[in-house]
């Protein structure tokens, strides 16, 4: 079937060229029919990308080794589920996934735009077409997943690290986030090209950014859990360049989601918001470039290829073109209002933005510095965790604090008397918890103690915000507390969904602090029958077993675990030796305590005939990180849930009678 796949990609490329050319001409000359034709080209491009993707997926499932891509990323013994994840396990397949999601999102943007923001679509369609054109061109001319060869008897297999259930969800989730940022970019550029001075584009852009940001955030947490259970070093985030590549656009999008509220409520920060949209998209492209160009060595950078110069050129064009457009539209973007006070809700949003962008830029510098030094001096330089951790503390702790301060301050300006009233309870609770933590021995880590005290402040501030809002709502409409609470959240889903997301960040921070500032690590060689103590745990080595798995030889050390004289069972850390891939992977054993959120993490570094070299980590509260992921998702869904009243307002404002009848 490779000819059909190639033909579908060529059709997709042709449709993208048409969407750019016909769409631009139609927008310029205000030709409605031609504009609709260009929109149809975007819809048809999605179908073409879908056909190409189906052809590759069928080839993978059928293990058709006449395709180079299938040969290089699967083997006869590879389990069926991982033949699916092999779709995005290599460069060509992941680029095809990019294209599939891009055309899918673009088609959805066109369909939704026809109903609610049709006038914005005119210049948005050519921008979307331009991005589709780039990825189609790459797949047709540079990195085709449909290259063929004489069929081999067996394939080379899939990288063992990718043979994990998380790999079925983590990369697509990240790609949904990366690619999703294209849509806000296209709408922002479309609005500027159309010389629109109204803010319809900001409404559309905000929703799409929230969708992309949710996928990107949850995808990163899935990736962190994958690293934790699969990579087998006991951590979940290592400031790896590819991890940073996903974090940077998320930070830029986070900044945008906050500053866009200032534009909506006060008409300020218009230029800043467009810059953030462009920055988030450019960073998403840069992230894909880092992952797929092979320019950096990373445990996540599974491919090397020749697409680097293409990506750099495209990123350069996107950044230069966007900046030139913003400069040419500056009069449209000037704000009429100014910040009234440095102590106001909008000021805290501004500080939050400055910290987020500063953090994002320091990470970017840490990522590109080794590339630059190698290019200029010829010697690779490594920027390690101490660099990033310094800035995480420098920017992260104030950001955490601002999450608690922001909800307590009124819009426009706040007086000292008002502040003392709203801050009293959260500050009191935070100080009390700080003192209690010192008494419990948490003072062994000062950053940990400060972090936990800040977390207590933020959580109490969020709780108070819900309580005060519910009380105010109940005073007005009567009824039960629960009814008032649901009415409060339902009437302002963005605000209260946002607070729940803030609570998830606090949970994440508690998990990260607990597992990094208060963890215990021990390494020891044990002979059969010997024991070691780590924290409250006693571990006894009982010997080893070896079994043949589906596609690997599985060697396991048997370690009995006790705590306080009570047996907690046998843990089996070990190693898998993959047949086709000729690689060995660490298989860590993890025991989670549901009550305390603590993990006992075992790594069998070496397993001999009658001895094992064990690395043991005790990670307090680490499971709160994964729980935070679900809370994050819940908060984001509440914020994303369509609000009929808002839609009615927007339809009335922007669409006139016609839109109202559609709404």
């Amino acid at each position, binding site marked *: 079937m490779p*000819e059909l796949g190639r033909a579908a990609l060529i059709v997709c490329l042709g449709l993208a060229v048409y969407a750019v050319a016909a769409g631009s001409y139609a927008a310029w000359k205000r030709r409605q029919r031609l504009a609709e034709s260009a929109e149809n080209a975007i819809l048809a491009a999605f179908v073409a990308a879908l056909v190409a993707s189906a052809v590759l997926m069928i080839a993978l499932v059928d293990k058709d080794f006449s395709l180079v891509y299938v040969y290089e990323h699967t083997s006869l013994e590879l389990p069926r589920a991982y033949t699916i994840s092999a779709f995005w396990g290599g460069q060509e397949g992941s680029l095809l996934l990019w294209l599939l999601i891009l055309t899918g999102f673009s088609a959805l943007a066109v369909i939704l735009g026809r109903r609610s923001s049709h006038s914005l679509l005119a210049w948005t369609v050519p921008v979307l077409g331009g991005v589709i054109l780039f990825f189609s061109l790459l797949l047709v001319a540079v990195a085709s997943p449909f290259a063929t060869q004489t069929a081999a008897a067996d394939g080379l297999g899939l990288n063992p690290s990718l043979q994990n259930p998380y790999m079925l969800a983590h990369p697509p989730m990240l790609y949904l986030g990366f690619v999703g940022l294209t849509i806000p970019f296209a709408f922002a550029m479309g609005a500027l090209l159309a010389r629109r001075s109204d803010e319809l584009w900001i409404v559309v852009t905000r929703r799409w950014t929230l969708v992309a940001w949710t996928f990107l955030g949850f995808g990163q947490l899935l990736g962190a859990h994958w690293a934790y259970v699969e990579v087998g070093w006991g951590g979940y985030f290592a400031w790896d360049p590819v991890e940073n590549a996903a974090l940077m656009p998320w930070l830029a999008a986070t900044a945008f989601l906050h500053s866009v509220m200032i534009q909506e409520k006060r008409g300020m920060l218009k230029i800043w918001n467009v810059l953030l949209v462009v920055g988030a998209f450019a960073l998403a492209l840069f992230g894909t470039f880092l992952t797929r160009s092979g320019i950096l060595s990373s445990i996540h950078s599974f491919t090397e290829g020749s697409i680097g110069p293409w990506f750099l050129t495209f990123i350069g064009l996107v950044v230069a073109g966007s900046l030139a457009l913003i400069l040419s539209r500056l009069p449209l973007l000037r704000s009429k209002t100014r910040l009234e006070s440095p102590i106001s809700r909008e000021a805290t949003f501004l500080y939050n933005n400055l910290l987020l962008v500063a953090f994002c830029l320091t990470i970017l510098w840490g990522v590109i510095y080794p590339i630059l030094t190698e290019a200029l001096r010829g010697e690779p330089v490594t920027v390690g965790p101490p660099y990033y951790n310094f800035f995480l503390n420098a920017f992260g702790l104030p950001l955490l604090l601002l999450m608690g301060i922001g909800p307590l301050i009124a819009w426009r300006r706040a007086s000292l008397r008002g502040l003392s009233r709203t801050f009293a309870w959260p500050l009191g609770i935070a100080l009390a918890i700080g003192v209690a933590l010192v008494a419990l021995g948490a003072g062994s880590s000062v950053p940990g103690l400060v972090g936990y005290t800040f977390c207590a402040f933020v959580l109490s501030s969020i709780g108070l915000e819900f309580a005060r809002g519910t009380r105010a709502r109940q005073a007005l409409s009567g009824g039960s507390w629960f009814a008032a609470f649901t009415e409060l959240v339902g009437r302002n889903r963005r605000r209260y969904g946002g607070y729940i997301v803030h609570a998830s960040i606090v949970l994440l921070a508690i998990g990260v602090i607990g597992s990094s500032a208060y963890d215990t690590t021990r390494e020891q060689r044990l002979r059969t029958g010997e024991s070691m103590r780590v924290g409250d745990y006693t571990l006894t080595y009982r010997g080893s077993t070896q079994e043949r798995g589906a596609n690997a030889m599985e060697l396991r050390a048997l370690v009995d675990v006790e705590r306080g004289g009570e047996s907690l069972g046998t843990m089996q850390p070990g190693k898998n030796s993959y047949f086709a891939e000729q690689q060995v992977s660490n298989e860590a054993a993890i025991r989670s305590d549901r009550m305390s959120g603590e993990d006992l993490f075992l790594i069998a570094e070496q397993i001999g005939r009658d001895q094992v070299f064990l690395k043991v980590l005790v990670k307090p509260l680490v499971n709160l990180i994964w729980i935070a992921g679900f809370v994050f998702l819940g908060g984001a869904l509440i914020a994303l849930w369509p609000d009929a009243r808002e839609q009615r307002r927007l339809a009335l404002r922007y669409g006139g009678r016609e839109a109202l009848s559609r709404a």
Partner: protein
Amino acid sequence: MSVELLLGALLAAAAVAFVAVPLLRGGEPPPSEEPAQETLVAAEERDRALAELKELEFDHRTGKITDEDYRALVQPLRRRAASSLANGATLPRGTAEHPSEQHFSEGSASSSRSDR
């Protein structure tokens, strides 16, 4: 010609036909009813003024703003909202909501809470 190439050609032909459909309808449709840019900007300004007033009432009711601060802030905002409503009397209605959705505004505007 192989079946695959035939399917590829069919895909291309279907795409061309789908893209051509709007062009085959003939004639340009009448321009959409969307208001002019200046009108939209004025409507946004009016909605923003009303939303700010509503937000102030909410902040006052939840205790973030003292009575003193509320009195100092509410008058300029009301004047701005009234002025933008007067300017936009002919604009499509946006933020101005159904009376049942104005609890906070009505409740707080008539209330005179004492500082705690």
